[in-house]
């Protein structure tokens, strides 16, 4: 059994691109769900339209990379408006239904045959990330006994963590401001906030756009780290992982999504590396599981862990138990 490999993939996953992508997406979702109380089940669509906006601009329409970023950002805002205008006036559960449906519509449009000459259909798009990697200041990667990243990976990770810090700073500033106070109050009781002279609809829309735009940063990092996009990666389970991360870290906590994402991917990577190794080494007999089944068992174990966490620590890692328990009233 090669413990070095198991530990190094786990450590790499702590800071790797996947963790960054989910952290950014969850920071955005935390604005929706944690702070504003908006049940957005379509966060994957925000990442999707941003990634496709960028990739289509560069690959399909042969425009510069920076314009692609702007198009992706614009697409995110338009999606937020499209979702919000009809639904934010209604109760929160309607938003949940509409967003999960919208995310599926977006994914199916991306993979539809009719649009495939622009979107690449189910194969998605490639060759849009050259301009990004051309900016790479790293000439070589790093390789130590514990971790190793290529120059490209290093560049994605650097940009990703800078974006995470910026996103955290924005969320921290806003949530400690009177604006954040109104948004949190809306989560508690919309009518009370209305009765105090606040335009609840406008605040919910701003929160929806903000969370979507923060999530879209994750969409860019995701697409650029893989140098390819595929429609089916933007499915509903993408969103459910984000929810897991938000709740794991502690909803409505600034650092919650980042730490949640790190722990989630550390655990998943560690178990997914450990189990097959244990089976191959004969520590776990094949009568219990084979190496092929180890992957599924890994998800089961992580799932059980999360269930236990919710039972014994419903506030997540950073949450305040007293605060969470107020909900029970």
């Amino acid at each position, binding site marked *: 059994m090669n413990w070095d490999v198991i530990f190094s993939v786990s450590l790499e996953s702590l800071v790797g691109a996947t963790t960054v992508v989910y952290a950014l997406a969850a920071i955005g979702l935390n604005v929706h769900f944690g702070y504003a109380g908006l049940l957005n089940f379509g966060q994957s669509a925000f990442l999707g339209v941003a990634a496709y906006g960028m990739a289509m601009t560069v690959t399909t329409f042969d425009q510069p990379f920076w314009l692609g970023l702007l198009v992706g950002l614009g697409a995110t805002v338009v999606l937020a408006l499209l979702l919000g205008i009809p639904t934010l006036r209604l109760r929160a559960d309607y938003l949940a239904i509409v967003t999960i449906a919208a995310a599926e519509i977006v994914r199916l449009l991306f993979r539809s045959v009719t649009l495939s000459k622009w979107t690449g259909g189910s194969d998605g798009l490639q060759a849009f990330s050259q301009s990004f990697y051309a900016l790479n200041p790293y000439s070589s990667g790093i390789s130590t006994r514990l971790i190793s990243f290529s120059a490209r990976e290093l560049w994605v990770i650097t940009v990703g963590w800078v974006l995470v810090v910026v996103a955290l700073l924005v969320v921290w500033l806003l949530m400690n401001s*009177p*604006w954040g106070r109104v948004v949190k109050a809306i989560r508690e009781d919309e009518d009370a906030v*209305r009765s105090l002279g*606040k335009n609840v609809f406008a605040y919910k829309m701003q929160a929806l756009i903000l969370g979507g735009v923060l999530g879209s940063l994750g969409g860019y990092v995701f697409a650029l780290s893989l140098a390819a996009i595929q429609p089916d990666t933007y499915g509903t389970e993408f969103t459910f992982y984000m929810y897991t991360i938000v709740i794991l870290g502690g909803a409505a906590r600034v650092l919650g999504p980042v730490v949640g994402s790190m722990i989630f991917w550390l655990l998943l990577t560690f178990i997914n590396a450990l189990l097959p190794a244990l089976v191959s080494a004969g520590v776990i007999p094949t009568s219990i599981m084979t190496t092929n089944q180890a992957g599924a068992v890994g998800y089961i174990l992580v799932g059980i862990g999360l269930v236990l966490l919710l039972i014994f620590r419903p506030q997540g890692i950073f949450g305040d138990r007293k605060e969470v328990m107020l909900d029970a009233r």
Partner: protein
Amino acid sequence: MRDEATTSGAESAHARATAALRDVPREPGVAKPDPILVADNVVRSFGGLTAVNVKHVEIQRGAITALIGPNGAGKTTFFNLLTGFDKPDEGQWTFNGDPVQGVPPHKVARRGMVRTFQLTKVLSRLSVIDNMRLGAVGQKGERFWRALVPSGWRRQENEITERADELLARFKLDAKREDFAGSLSGGQRKLLEMARALMVQPDMVMLDEPMAGVNPALTQSLLGHVKALREDGMTVLFVEHDMDMVRDISDWAIVMAQGEIIAEGAPEDVMADPRVIDAYLGAHHDGAPAPAATGAQGPGAPADDEPKAGPAGRE
């Protein structure tokens, strides 16, 4: 608190309201000398049921007006309509001379008409002081881009906090300043909701059953606070079932039954009004102390003493 409210200045506000309403005829829809709110032909139906059908009503400025009536009379629905939380089928009303029908609730509040709710709406997972701060209007830091620059709103925030702390002290909630509002007792929540409404600096406060579920000791303190609102120059309109309280603090009472206004007048007068007694006892009777208290004081209203006397009295 109550002592402050009954000092000389306080007496005068109460006296002024009493004097202004002394010669107003005791009739439904009567005109007032100085109305702050005037409503005409406000109708709201739910399916076949006409919940509210108010021909004309005026609320006197600077007075405490009670809106009473049996359960299902349409009092809360009327509140919701006036404050924009519900839309009428027809009707117009003006507040401070400006039409407000069709105005969304947050704009109604900004114009100076602020309400509380029958089921208290505190913002549980916000601290008491944040509940209060939220009430202030025109906050620079509530705008998205400005919120990102704390130096742009810090000074205003300090002023708001100072005002909030004064109100918290006045409502004896200062010890709970940093607690989650969700950890307050029912009575404290009522106090917080009222104090928060005052942060808006309204001209008119509309209280939907401010005493519901509050223990008798706290009721006295709440009564003092409501009276103090009048002394601060505010107009108060409140829905209440407790007739003792209505008699104690209101300058004028408006009685609704089945969506219509059936009587108006000084509290003592309307409680003796046969139409009112009929409305209460003919309908499902929920507030036993109310007519009983009236009966105890006014022997001239024999039917008005026990709930079970109702049906017999009618026959």
